[in-house]
């Protein structure tokens, strides 16, 4: 299901949690939603799922408004770490309600997932470990087969084997039943290969909206003698500079064409790739005011692929 958000604003009393977001998401893609604690990730997803009403702007999913619209909310599943959908007596009960309230529930698949995560139907949800609760959330989220599925930090407390089981199940089921999936996470290095596109939000604003591979290609580490690094990066968007004695390393954001790359090599500078996590850190650092560092057009301009989605 496609998602269209225009000028979205969410206030908690005096506090503005989401401050003017505009974007659209296409069908059948996995999106990464990255942001620091308190940046507005959970609030944004809560509004997309109809858990909460926006203070301003419009939110449309599948072309229709979301809040208190049963035809739309029935097609949306948001799994939050608090676990409203599972906080009930037994695993069995949680699955009973999911099966009863979810229009596309796949009970056989839910059973298969339970087994994969080592959960039993007779387990008491309240007595489960944090990781087991997260795993149960994943079971409910995947077996719901909702056209818009969101997982808000659904890995919390999971050990590495469980997380890998989650990634494998997510990818396999996504390929078998393509749908729009949004994943919010702080485990950026582990998650980033799963994303087709990434949204980075900071202090309630959308800072970056990019195909994840393109985003990675845009970040470059320029390393070499400090004066030459400074000369080379003049006029470029520099997110961060670190110095070690006479050597400096600058994180540059933006496309470097072949001519510039040649110039760098001729100047004896080393050009290296940057991990998504490092890019994220630099783009959301309090000091490096990201909203200013990244040209507004980058974040706001919808993608070619999505524009075709809008027209549909």
């Amino acid at each position, binding site marked *: 299901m496609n998602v269209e958000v225009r000028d979205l604003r969410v206030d908690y009393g005096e506090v503005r949690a989401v401050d003017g977001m505009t974007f659209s998401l296409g069908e059948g893609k996995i999106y990464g939603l990255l942001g620091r604690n308190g940046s507005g990730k*959970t*609030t944004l997803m*809560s509004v997309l*799922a*109809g*858990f*909460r*009403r926006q203070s301003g702007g419009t939110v449309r999913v599948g072309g229709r408004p979301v*809040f*208190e*619209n*049963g035809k739309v*909310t*029935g*097609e*949306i*599943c*948001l799994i*939050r770490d*608090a*676990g*409203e*959908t599972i*906080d*009930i007596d037994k695993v069995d009960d949680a699955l*009973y*309600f*999911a099966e*009863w*309230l*979810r229009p596309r529930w796949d009970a056989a698949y839910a059973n298969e997932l339970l087994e994969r995560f080592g959960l039993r139907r007779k387990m008491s949800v309240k007595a489960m470990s944090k990781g087991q609760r997260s795993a149960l959330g994943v079971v409910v989220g995947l077996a719901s087969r*909702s056209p818009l599925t969101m997982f808000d930090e659904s890995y919390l407390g999971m050990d590495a084997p469980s997380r890998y089981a989650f990634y494998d199940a997510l990818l396999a089921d996504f390929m078998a039943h393509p749908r729009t999936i949004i994943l919010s996470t702080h485990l950026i290095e582990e998650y980033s290969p799963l994303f087709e596109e990434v949204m980075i939000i900071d202090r309630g604003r959308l800072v970056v909206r990019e195909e994840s591979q393109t985003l990675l290609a845009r970040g470059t580490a320029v390393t070499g003698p400090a004066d030459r690094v400074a000369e080379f990066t003049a006029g470029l968007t520099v997110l961060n500079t670190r110095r070690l004695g006479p050597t400096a390393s600058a994180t540059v954001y933006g496309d470097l064409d072949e001519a510039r790359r040649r110039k760098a090599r001729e100047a004896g500078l080393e050009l290296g790739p940057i991990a998504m996590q490092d890019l994220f850190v630099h783009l959301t650092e309090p000091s490096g005011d990201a909203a200013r560092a990244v040209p507004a057009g980058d974040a706001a301009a919808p993608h070619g692929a999505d524009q075709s989605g809008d027209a549909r």
Partner: protein
Amino acid sequence: MRFPSRLLASQLFFAGLVWAAFYAVVTLITVGIAVFGTLTNSVWESATQVPRWFALFAGVAMIREFLPLYIAHGQTRRQFGAQAAVTVALYAPALSALLVLGYLLETLLYNVAGWPQELARPHLFASPTDVPLVFLEYLVEFLAWIVAGTFMAAAFYRWQGGGLLSIPLGIGLVVLGEAAIGTELRLPFIRFPLGVVSTPTVLTVLAGGVGCSLLGLAMTWSIIRDVPLRNRLA
């Protein structure tokens, strides 16, 4: 969406179990009083002041447990509200029927043992075997207490500590229900005759009970109609 009949059935089954245990305890006390003292009154009559609290917490659980569950599973607040109203309309009479059953069993026991089953308080009914009036009195009482529970739980879910302000209104709903029965107000530590309805008839009681529960549901709805799910559960 189907009505949660399995859920209601399991809740009623649970209420039945609690009732059975409760009845057993009350009977034990009854026999105890008869053996060690003199039994002049219906013990079940005094015991029926406890299940009101059970009804209150049934109302609380409906909001605290099931409202977030419904919304998180893609249902609207409207759908939840409608089903909650139907649930209240079915649950309260079921609880009332259990109390009627308690009176009838007690009458049976007292007759066999030859004890006098006097009523200590004023009621709609003159005798514990007057089934329709016994049922009506407790039905109205349970309706009032359940909606007081949903209303206060909704206020606490929405405003946390601010929900304290809803307590006087919740008590107001309960008072309204008792006034409809027209007997006397029986809250912990306070009891005084209300006399709002001087001579209650079946019709005024029914109207008062239905009115009270509709008012309580409307007050609950005014809070939950656009309530956001909490970001962090306590």
